[in-house]
């Protein structure tokens, strides 16, 4: 990396961290209950409990999930050489949700037989593991089926991803029907992408997993640059394409699985954020990946705060997955149209 590039990286990272801090601070000050920062710092209840026990953990959770999804999205876009790729669209989130659902329902069933065993199975690490395994299997499936003549074709993979999402939705609906009613309701809420009240240990486990997997992607960012040139070109430039692709899949799936285990299916973060960040920072993934991840964290914290603020008068808090879908759906369509238009102009 040349020295101007290094200073740009430092600048991007600094701004990203600043954005996260601002977003978290803003999120902490927003909520249905008016509280005073001074009182909270002095240890007055309930201000202290609300600020440090509820709002801050929630904001940190949102930051971790946003970090994971934006990082995974950036990597998947590089892998598929297509800016429309991201964990939700490709069905990776869906697979994670399915994996987590299966574990949760198995835990509920097990509870009927043996309470403690059921509780153990339904706790955070097994559910997270289920989500990660689900994410990896679906990645495997989507990238495996998205081939034409043995070569990975991005458009085919995206189509497979969309179909796979529908499949997962169907399976989850079936499983929900078979689930006990209160489980079904809770499941639905989780699946819609609600940032809830995970315990500190859950948050810690999730954060570690996310940092490790996105960190791996960061280490592979130079290779990602080469992969965007095409499999053959990357190979002729010295990249072991299959091994690198497998590593990127693995890391992106792990990040997505952790994010889904923590907050259900939050979509489009991995689509919107890398796209916007790329326009500012450029296509070099050594810069783009860390910047996307950091701004993704800030983005989701802000989106969650927005969701809570907007619904304040209605006395409820919508799941942040609904907000990102609300923002992301039209954004996806706009991006699609823009791509089509650029393609037409290019052909002419």
């Amino acid at each position, binding site marked *: 990396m040349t020295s101007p590039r290094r200073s740009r990286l430092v600048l991007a990272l600094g701004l990203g961290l600043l954005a996260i801090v601002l977003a978290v601070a803003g999120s902490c000050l927003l909520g249905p209950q008016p509280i005073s920062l001074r009182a909270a710092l002095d240890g007055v209840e309930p201000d202290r409990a609300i600020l440090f026990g509820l709002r801050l953990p929630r904001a940190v959770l949102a930051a971790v999930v946003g970090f994971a999804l934006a990082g995974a999205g950036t990597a998947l876009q590089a892998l598929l050489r297509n800016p429309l790729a991201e964990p939700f669209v490709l069905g990776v989130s869906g697979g994670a949700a399915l994996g987590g659902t299966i574990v949760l329902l198995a835990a509920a069933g097990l509870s009927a037989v043996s309470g403690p065993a059921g509780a153990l199975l339904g706790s955070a690490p097994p559910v997270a593991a289920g989500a990660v395994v689900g994410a990896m299997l679906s990645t495997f499936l989507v990238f495996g089926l998205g081939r034409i003549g043995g070569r990975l074709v991005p458009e085919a993979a995206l189509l497979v991803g969309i179909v796979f999402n529908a499949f997962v939705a169907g399976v989850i609906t079936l499983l929900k029907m078979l689930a006990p009613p209160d489980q079904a309701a809770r499941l639905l809420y989780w699946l819609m992408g609600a940032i809830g009240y995970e315990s500190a240990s859950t948050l810690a486990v999730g954060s570690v997993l996310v940092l490790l997997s996105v960190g791996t992607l960061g280490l592979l960012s130079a290779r990602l*640059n080469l992969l965007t040139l095409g499999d053959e070109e990357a190979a002729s430039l010295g990249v072991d394409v299959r091994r690198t692709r497998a590593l990127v899949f693995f890391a992106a799936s792990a990040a997505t699985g952790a994010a889904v285990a923590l907050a259900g299916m939050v979509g489009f973060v991995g689509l919107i954020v890398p796209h916007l960040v790329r326009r500012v920072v450029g296509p070099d993934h050594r810069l783009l990946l860390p910047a996307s991840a950091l701004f993704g964290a800030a983005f989701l914290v802000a989106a969650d705060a927005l969701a809570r603020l907007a619904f304040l008068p209605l006395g409820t808090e919508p799941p942040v997955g609904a907000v990102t879908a609300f923002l992301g759906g039209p954004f996806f369509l706009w991006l699609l149209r823009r791509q089509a238009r650029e393609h037409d102009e290019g052909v002419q």
Partner: protein
Amino acid sequence: MSPHRLPGPPWPSPIVDVREARHAYGRRVAVDGVSFTAREGEFVGLLGPNGAGKSTLIRLVAGLLAPSAGTVRLGGFDPHAAPRKLVARVCALVPQEPRLDWPFTVRDVVMMGRSAHQGLLGIAGRDDLGAVEGALTACDLQHVAGRRVDALSGGERRRVFFARALAQEPRVLLLDEPTAFLDLAHQVAAMEMARLAARGGLCVVAVLHDLNLAAAACDRLVALREGKVVAEGSPSEVLTEERVREVWGVPVWRGQNGATGATVVLPNVGPRSPAGPGVP
């Protein structure tokens, strides 16, 4: 399979050694028992009609494909079995239509050629910077080094990818149709760059369609048809009227360029052509 020794000078001669190589895509046999060699300092042209197996052969040499029979040796080792990074230090491939999905700058693209010599994060050392500058100069790209690649003309873009290959500091340079879609001036320039590279000591193998350009620039020609080598030798040896009719199925007139002495072949078409296939 690891080589007995790390590849390096002195390189085995011939540096590209293909023997009875065979490769098929499913049922379709693309390369059928091809043997050919290429040496350092040589500019070899691969000729033949569409489907003759030229691109496949290039990819076998680059190690992107594995032969189902026969052997392919690059610098003394098997390019398909060897680690990609190793192969990339020895051999560079310039594809026909390089992809351009992301707006990298010229310097970025050329720097990518150094990844075979760099660590995981691709941090540029002094050697890398030097190699990149050298490649940019050799391809006359210094004035556009900071511009985005998608803002360049077709000819300039080709030079960028050629420069990237040079930045790899390979011993073998493989070019897949370097003159496709270029206008005359750029075609000539491309062939000149290849010839200069060969003069500089690289082994250059290019897949070409234009027989006359090939005859003018290449030291040796290899003519393929339906996966087999039909003729091999100097341009004047390969491009005879019988050979051309055999390989391409077209009657030609063969002569000599008065100014350069290069062999010239021209197809017999037009109102005064003798009767031949497809001629009115």
